Structures are given as C-alpha cells and as structure tokens.
C-alpha cells in the first residue's frame, strides 16, 4: 500500500526552524512506522536523522510524536495509523536534528533520584542471595520494565513547562527501588523527590501512562511515591 508521511524536519546547519516535508513510500500494513522511516531515509532522502536500534520496542531509542501522541516508531504498525502519518520529535527536550533531541536533561533527572540499589555497605555481604518472597518481588515488578525511552517524561505538560521537574521516568525508576524489599535508600530518595522539582509537581494528567510503550502504570507509580513521601510508608 502507499503510505503518506508528513515529517517535521530540521537541519541545524541550514534551517532557522523546523518545517514539515511530505513523503510517500510503498509498505505493508503490518510494517512498523520505523520501517517506513527507513524507506524514506534509504530511498528518498538519506539525510533523515533518527535514533533506532532493536526495532521491537525494548531498547527505547525511537520515541517520537506520532499523529500527536508519543510512541516508539518500532512499536506502531502502519495499519493502525491514520494518514498522512505526522511524525515530530518528542517535546520538552532541546531539538538537535530531525527526530533527534538532546537526551542529557532526561538522564540527569534519572540520575538525580539515585537509581541503584542502596544497602548498608558496612554489613557483611551475604554468601548466598538475599531472600525475597514472590509477593515482595511482585510489588515493584511494573516499574522494572522501564526502558528509559522518555516517552512518558516528554508527554508530561509539567515537564514541557518546567525543565527542572525530574519527570515521570525518574520517578518510575525511584519507585522501582523504593518498593524493593532489599533496598535501604528510600528515605534519601524520598527526600530528593519531596523537593520543589520532585514528585509533587505531578498534576496527574495521565499522559505518561498513555504514552508508556511498556504498559507501565506510570501515574499510579507516581501516586504511590507521593504517598510514600507523605506517610513514610514503603
């Protein structure tokens, strides 16, 4: 079938501002949007710039705004998209070129919440694994799925207007540890998240949950972190 695409293009060396360009490629309804972007790049205009790697929704490289909503280009199929398919870079991060944005502010937010297991290192390391019941493991399962694609954070209206806000993805990654029975760092993480740019900036727009390509209940995780911060319960 013919697929019509409308892509927001920006070349920082020659353009003052982004502009739309139209393309048409021949594809199968079961093809991914990423396949069509590749056809544009490989057959029509080799200068099209995008990030991609695994092409099946696990590496998190190709988050874009597709017909107005955030998605991974490798996880939406042509048959499910209205044409012309309008593709834009994700919002709220500095645009570099075409669909490539500066991810550094996003990763800075991630690192700010200390997303690693915190344990008392003065204690003797156990010889075997620490025990954790299936129920305890289940408690934080949803947020372990995060692939750091930024689809949630860049769909958040608070993040668009306030780049200091840590954003949904950082809170998801904090949640993954706050509710891990093995972790001992919840207090310091919640202290960070209780500051001005932390979790209470969230106004529960639910955009993040709708945007997550991994199906993580992001808004619910954020609410659980708010409760943990308010009541010190985790």
């Amino acid at each position, binding site marked *: 079938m013919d697929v019509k695409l409308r892509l927001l293009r920006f070349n920082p060396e020659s353009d003052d501002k982004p502009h739309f360009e139209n393309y048409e490629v021949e594809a199968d309804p079961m093809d991914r949007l990423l396949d069509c972007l590749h056809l544009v790049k490989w057959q029509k205009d080799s200068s099209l710039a995008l990030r991609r790697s695994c*092409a099946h929704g696990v590496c998190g490289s190709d988050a874009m705004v597709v017909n107005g909503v955030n998605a991974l280009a490798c996880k939406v199929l042509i048959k499910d998209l209205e044409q012309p398919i309008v593709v834009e870079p994700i919002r709220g991060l500095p645009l570099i070129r075409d669909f490539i944005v500066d991810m550094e502010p996003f990763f800075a937010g991630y690192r700010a919440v200390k997303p690693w297991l915190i344990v008392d290192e003065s204690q003797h390391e156990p010889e075997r*694994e620490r025990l954790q*019941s299936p129920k305890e493991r289940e408690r934080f399962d949803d947020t*372990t*799925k995060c692939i750091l694609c930024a689809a949630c954070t860049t769909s958040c209206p608070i993040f668009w207007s306030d780049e200091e806000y840590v954003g949904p993805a950082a809170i998801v990654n904090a949640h993954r540890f706050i509710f891990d029975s093995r972790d001992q760092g919840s207090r310091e993480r919640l202290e960070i998240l209780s500051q001005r740019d932390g979790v209470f900036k969230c106004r529960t727009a639910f955009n993040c949950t709708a945007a997550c390509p991994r199906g993580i209940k992001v808004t619910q995780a954020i609410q659980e972190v708010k409760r943990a911060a308010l009541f010190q319960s985790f």
Partner: protein
Amino acid sequence: MAQVHEYDSVIVGAGGAGLRAALEAGKRVKTAVVSKLYPTRSHTGAAQGGMCAALANVEDDSWEWHAFDTVKGSDFLADQDAVDIMCNEAVASVLELERMGLPFNRTPEGKIDQRRFGGHTRDHGEAPVKRACYAADRTGHMILQTLYQQCNKYGVEFYDEFFVLDLLMVDGHCSGIVAYEIATGELHIFHAKAVLFATGGYGKMFKITSNAHTLTGDGPGVVYRKGLPLEDMEFFQFHPTGLYRLGILLSEAARGEGAILRNADGERFMERYAPTIKDLAPRDIVSRAEFFEIKEGRGAGPDKDYLLLDLTDVDPEVVEKKLPDITEFARTYLDVDPLKEGVPIVPTAHYAMGGIPTDVNGQVLANHNGDLVPGFYAAGECACVSVHGANRLGTNSLLDIVVFGRRGGIAMAEYASTHKLLKLPEDTERSVQQWLAAICDGPGEESTYEIRSTLQEEMMDKASVLRTDESLSEALEAIDKLRDRFTRTRVKDTCKIFNTELVEHIELGYLLDMAQALVVSAKARTESRGGHYREDHQMREDDHWLKHSFITKVPEGLPQLAYKDVVMGRYEPVERKY
C-alpha cells in the same frame, strides 16, 4: 584536529560485557566507556530467557554438569579450560548480580527461581534440568539496567554516541582508539594504556535476524582491518524461534515452560530429531530440523515457509506472568494470540560464536600460535574465548558477558596499573580523516541501501543454516561484487551533526568484511559441526577438523586461514545425540 583524551583504560561498547568490565576497571584505574549508543540501548537488553548457573535452588545440579552440557552443545569445539572457568564462576556471578539489585524471579522460599533451557541437562544428558536464573522474559533487560545503575553509582565516565573507527597500535602494542563523535562529527583520540572491545555481534549481515540495526561487527571489523585475526567466523547461530518475516526473538524459555514446535500437520517434529529432550535440543539442531521440515514440504502457511510455536497447552497464567514480552511481540507484530493459536516462527540469525580471539582473561591473541597483543582485550559477543565452540547453549551468552566482562576488566586494569602510557603513533588520525573524506567524495552511483539488502539476502540464502561448497562459492562471488560496488557509493549528507548516513555507511563496510570472513572460513571447513552444517559434508570430522579457524585479512586477494588446536579436558568428543 582531533581532541585527545588520556585514560588508563578505555572500554568500547556499553552492553553487558562492557559495563561489567567498566565496573571492575573503574574501581581500579581511570576508565572511560566509549559507546555508539546510549548504554541502555545496547542489545543485551533484548536477551530474554535467563542466565544459567548451577545454583541447585530448584533441582539437583552441579557446575560440572553445566560444563559438560556446554562442551557437548559446542560440538566439542569449545576450549574446555575456559568452559570450566565460566561454569564454575557462574554461581558467584549470578549471586553477585542479585547483590547489585537484579530483580530475579523467586521461588516460594524466596530464592532465585530457575527454569529449563535448551541443551541444559542433569547428570550428563539424562533429562532437562532447571538451571536458568531469570526475570520473566526480560533477563537481559534487567542485567543491562542493573549494570548501568551500578556504573552510575560508581561514577563511571561515559562517552555516549561515540563510534569507534580505529585501533591505535605501536610496535604491536595497543595504545588507544580513534572515535567519531556522532553529535558533532569530530574525531577524538582516546589515548590509553589498555583497551577492551565489547562491541557485540554482526547479525545484520543476514536478512532474518534477531539482531538490532546497530549490530554490524564494528569491533571485529576494526580488528580485522588492523591485520589481526578473527576466530571461528564460520560458526553463526540461528535461533529456532524468530517471529515469521521479522526475526524478532521468541525466547527458548517458551519451550522451557512447555511450548511445543509443530509443523503444518500439527506434528511435534522434534521427536524425530532429538528423541530424549525433543523441543529443548540445542539451537543448531532445532534450527536445522526446521529447515528440513520446510524443505520437505511440511512448513505451515500458504507458502509452507514457517513452523508453529504452540503455547496453547501451557498454563495461561505462566504465559502471561513468565513470558509477557514475547506474548506481546506475537500480538503486536503478527496479530497472533499465543494463548489461542500457534505462533508462526522461522530460524533467525542470532549470535556469532566467532570473533576476536582472546585468552581466558580477555586478552586478545595476535595469531593462531597464541601470542598476545599487549594492552588489548575483548569480551562478550565480539570476542571468542572460546566457550561456545561451534554452537552456543541458550543463556550462556549472558553468562559469558558477565564472567568474561569481569575478568577482562580486572586484567586490563592490572595491565594499565603496571605499564606506562605509550606514545601515540605518528599522524594518529590522518588515515581516518582520509577515509572519511573519501567516502564523502565517492562517485555516488551505487546505493548503500541496495548493497545492504542484497548482502542480507545472499547471506540468508547461501550461508545460513544449510551450506554447500556451491552455495558458499556463490555467496563469496556476490560479496566480491558488493564490495566493489561499495567503493562507488557516496555519503550525500554533508551535515556534521548526527550524520547517521555516514554511520550507516561505515557499518555496512564492517558488515561486508565480516561476511567475507564468515564465508571464506565456512567454505574451507569441509565438515559439519554445530552451527556450521554442510550438506555436502554432513559428518563431523574430528581427525581433521577439531580445531579453531583463524582468518586474517591480507593486502591483496582473499583473507588467509590458519588453525589452532582446541584445548581439551575431561570430555572426549563423542557423537552428539539428544
């Protein structure tokens, strides 16, 4: 002028092996990680099923049984000293990942849960054993995330989206690398005492592959062009369950949890090929069986060109809980619900057993005599220790990256702390500058897209699961033509910022080199062993071929082959039956 950075150790690649090495090296010496992708985009994250270690949490097990399975699975081509190290250190490696916070699935008692996987057996082949430690079907994702978290915790320095273009060598010693900063188009020299490559595989030379677009053999490509050898390139693993048309991986864990492979007649065909362990036979055997079924007209679908992975008899809760991602892949990409019907699958190019030859500490070999390259290390899929021989067992890649990433990181740091920084070669970056200028100034009459897709089709048709001298000769001829056409391409994008056309162009060059090395090695090996199956030489020939191939590029003509003996141990080669 290139920017120059000085480090004790520089690691290229930020998947499981690179990050594991970085944790060790970073604690000991000044270390940088240089990676083409953001670390969490690495393809370790796509690994699904598990990581084997004889924890014996669920069933009786021993590391020695694991070693036996690995050697037998390798069709006796693995070096048994290295296999012993890997299987013995597996237990500590899994426990260490747990201590770093990896969220393994748990048994009712709270221990790390384990499940069955292809080729892993109790007591030397008696029956399948539960040995694979796992986190749903996202084990690789959890390993990658956990290692990245730890690297952040310890403040490892990253240079993300830097693409390696050259290895710097002075009198046979490694003294650093040249990398291209994708964001700016600038060259950077990383001047270092020790370098470790952990750049992953090169499955993108095949049409149907589970590999990411970015898996193009960059590390082995650089090494090969430097005149250093690559080992066992003829051995490439095809995973038996790739999604039809797409090649996206559906974990062997599906069969570990009870899924069955069926042909068009609904027959459980693996009973004929591996009567004892059936669907859980090693991947080379199952992929071959699928090719035979299709060849003999028993494939499913209108074109009789796929088989079916049947999960309908597996408890739906197990499918949803323990195999959520692969269930979603089938639903998203094929519109097939695995709870209700068989999932169309085909063998998919999955894993390079061959690569940059190393010793058990990750140090790179300069030749088939076993001489070492001072200051140069490699680990993970881009390397060949060899622990996988002619066919890797499922889960052993995640184990490999953790065990040998760690060993390589320690070894490189020890080397770096006992040696001085060497001088850089004269005109360090000039040859790279000339190369880049040339590819932006070519005639531009050929299309890289056509060259790449022709390569992928030719390799799939002529050098994949079933091979003959004739098919390999044709493949070689096709590659020669493509290499020639490649010289007449040009990078048309002139923008310095994120010139991904330039990156893809260089990647295709590496792929063409890897394909040539693979086919020349495969054509020479006139026997069948593991993942290398010759229809015109169907038997394994231990008298002549129980040896590793070493292929080296020469200035003119076809690359040259030499051979190195396999390190034997407790297990003598026997006929491989399952």
